[in-house]
């Protein structure tokens, strides 16, 4: 079992004709993901990736023609807000946006619109979602995770790979791995994913990978204390990050004394979460 995506997920890739888009779409297909369509306005009717994927002028047409039910957005930042709105307007219920550097005000408008449409967005500025063995949407390497019963949710990219890889090395697999992204305004937060994992019969344990900035980890801790009976393991990056500086991710910043790693770790521990000192330790903690 899994959350968000599985072997039946049909993906439309917005920006499939770009360098990044075509490269990763190819990897996704190799993984076994059903990439049923690409979108590039003005290129409708063409086929890409050696004729494997048809391109459409809009998400609406792509969805009507192929039945796509998930969109992967890999267009440049200045086009990404419209790309998400387009997918939502076309009735796509799940949008995964990898694009980094989207202006915050744009994201506030997009998120408001998506909420009103009841559309789930994962990202932006995230590595994507992977249900090992079934479906891989985004840029999480296909060979670093094996199927299993641990749900993983993270604000980070390579740090997540690190944890997945450490789990794999001790023979532990993942039900689904969700990268929620490093931006201050995103679509899906920890609580959303924790709830899905709690409800997913295929997930027995959960790993949460957080970092400095905002208060989402603190809210997640509260949620865990109130609503979860599955064990949760966590790592929080940024203990040594200085205040007032964005640590690469737009959302990773300690501002006005809020958003420190210490606060988050304390909150999680108080909620019964085992917090690792370093990412590789997660695997040891889970193995027990």
């Amino acid at each position, binding site marked *: 079992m899994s959350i968000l995506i599985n072997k039946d997920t049909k993906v439309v890739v917005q920006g499939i004709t770009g360098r990044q888009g075509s490269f990763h779409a190819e990897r996704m297909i190799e993984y076994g993901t059903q990439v049923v369509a690409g979108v590039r306005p003005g290129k409708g009717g063409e086929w890409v990736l050696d004729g494997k994927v048809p391109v459409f002028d809009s998400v609406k047409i792509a969805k009507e023609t192929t039945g796509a039910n998930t969109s992967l957005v890999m267009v440049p930042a200045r086009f990404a807000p419209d790309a998400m709105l387009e997918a939502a307007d076309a009735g796509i219920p799940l949008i995964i946006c990898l694009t980094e550097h989207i202006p915050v005000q744009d994201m506030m408008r997009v998120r408001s619109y998506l909420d009103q449409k009841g559309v789930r967005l994962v990202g932006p500025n995230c590595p994507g979602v992977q249900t090992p063995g079934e479906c891989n949407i985004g*840029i999480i390497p296909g060979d670093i995770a094996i199927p299993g019963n641990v749900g993983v949710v993270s604000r980070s990219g390579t740090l997540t790979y690190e944890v997945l890889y450490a789990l794999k090395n001790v023979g532990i697999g993942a039900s689904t791995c969700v990268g929620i992204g490093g931006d201050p305004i995103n679509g899906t937060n920890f609580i959303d994913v924790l709830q899905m994992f709690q409800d997913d019969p295929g997930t027995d344990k959960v790993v949460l990978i957080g*970092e400095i900035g905002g208060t989402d980890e603190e809210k997640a801790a509260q949620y865990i204390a109130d609503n979860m009976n599955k064990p949760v393991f966590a790592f929080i990056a940024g*203990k040594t*990050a200085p205040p007032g*500086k964005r*640590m*690469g991710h737009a959302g990773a910043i300690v501002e006005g004394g809020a958003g420190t790693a210490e606060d988050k770790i304390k909150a999680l521990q108080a909620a019964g979460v085992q917090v690792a000192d370093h990412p590789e330790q997660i695997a040891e903690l889970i193995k027990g």
Partner: protein
Amino acid sequence: MKLHEYQSKNLFAQYGVPIPKGRVAATAAEAREIADELGGRVVIKSQVLVGGRGKAGGVKLANNGDEAEQLAREILSMEIKGLPVRKVLVDQGIDIETEIYFGITNDRSARRPVLIASAAGGVDIEEVAATTPEKIIRVHVDPLLGLRDYNVNDLAAGIELPRIHWKAFGQIAHGLWKAYLESDATLAEINPLVITGDGQLLAVDGKVVLDDNALFRQQNLVEMRDLDAEDNSEIEANKFGLTYIRLDGEIGCMVNGAGLAMATMDMVKLYGGEPANFLDIGGGASEEKVAAALRIILKDKRVKAVLFNVFGGITRGDEVAKGILAALKEVNPDVPMVIRLVGTNAEEGRKLLAEADMITAETLSEAAQKAVEAAKGA
């Protein structure tokens, strides 16, 4: 990107927010000239992009042109928190009756813009928020609707602004909102917004922080950028698409991915070292990028060892290794280098790097430990 006070206030003025008469000066003579124009009684304000300039002596009151020239000379020779004062703003003296705080920022957890006001203006708003939170009024704005009059009414009523000032306050609110919106600000702040003795509202101090991700559509504002206020290495890193932040330690870090980069710093600390920097080289690792990153790290003479931590996922490990080797040849560092390379084709990569006299490690823990040791030995 931060704007100076005078830039912020000029921006506000473009949107109809009233500001005191005044101009920026780069020399004491200019300051005198402006003071004379304004009738003598002026405030000389250092233009530096750090807080607390008042306490540091960077804001002074002058009663005439002579005093203005003298004080401007003093301030223009100062350094405030390490930043040289290159300009002063010479503003007319204001007869202050009341000081209000008024700002617009992005509320991360509400996911929408928020107007913040307080009748207890003129001081650090975070301090007010911490000690007397009831004095801070917050009103959210729907990002698809934009600012509505009723948002402003809720704010004005919340801070118990006398009715007589509601109209002027409304105009300022709409002006500040437009400035925030059209410049893609993450903060647009007037502190204090002053009610003068004769009942006028004036934005006496202003602060604007722009969203770096939106600068592509803010060319006019980008031109106001003050590079003096930024770290040279950070500027240099930016050019190569790298994110670099200088820290105080002795172990240089080069990592792909922001989260992993933070975790790597944390590991260094965990094993008794201190990271010298945060550095995210992003996806892939072209020779050019790696070389630039190395140069930037090594420019910091405190660095005693360099720790590479690369998760070769999309990019293959052997290619990353080749990029690093080429960069090493170019930069030719004289401190020990520890590399930990995992993921796709990591084995091949590690072999290549071991031959190049680098210390290799299998895990992040091992790598951090070795880097700390190497730095001590160096």
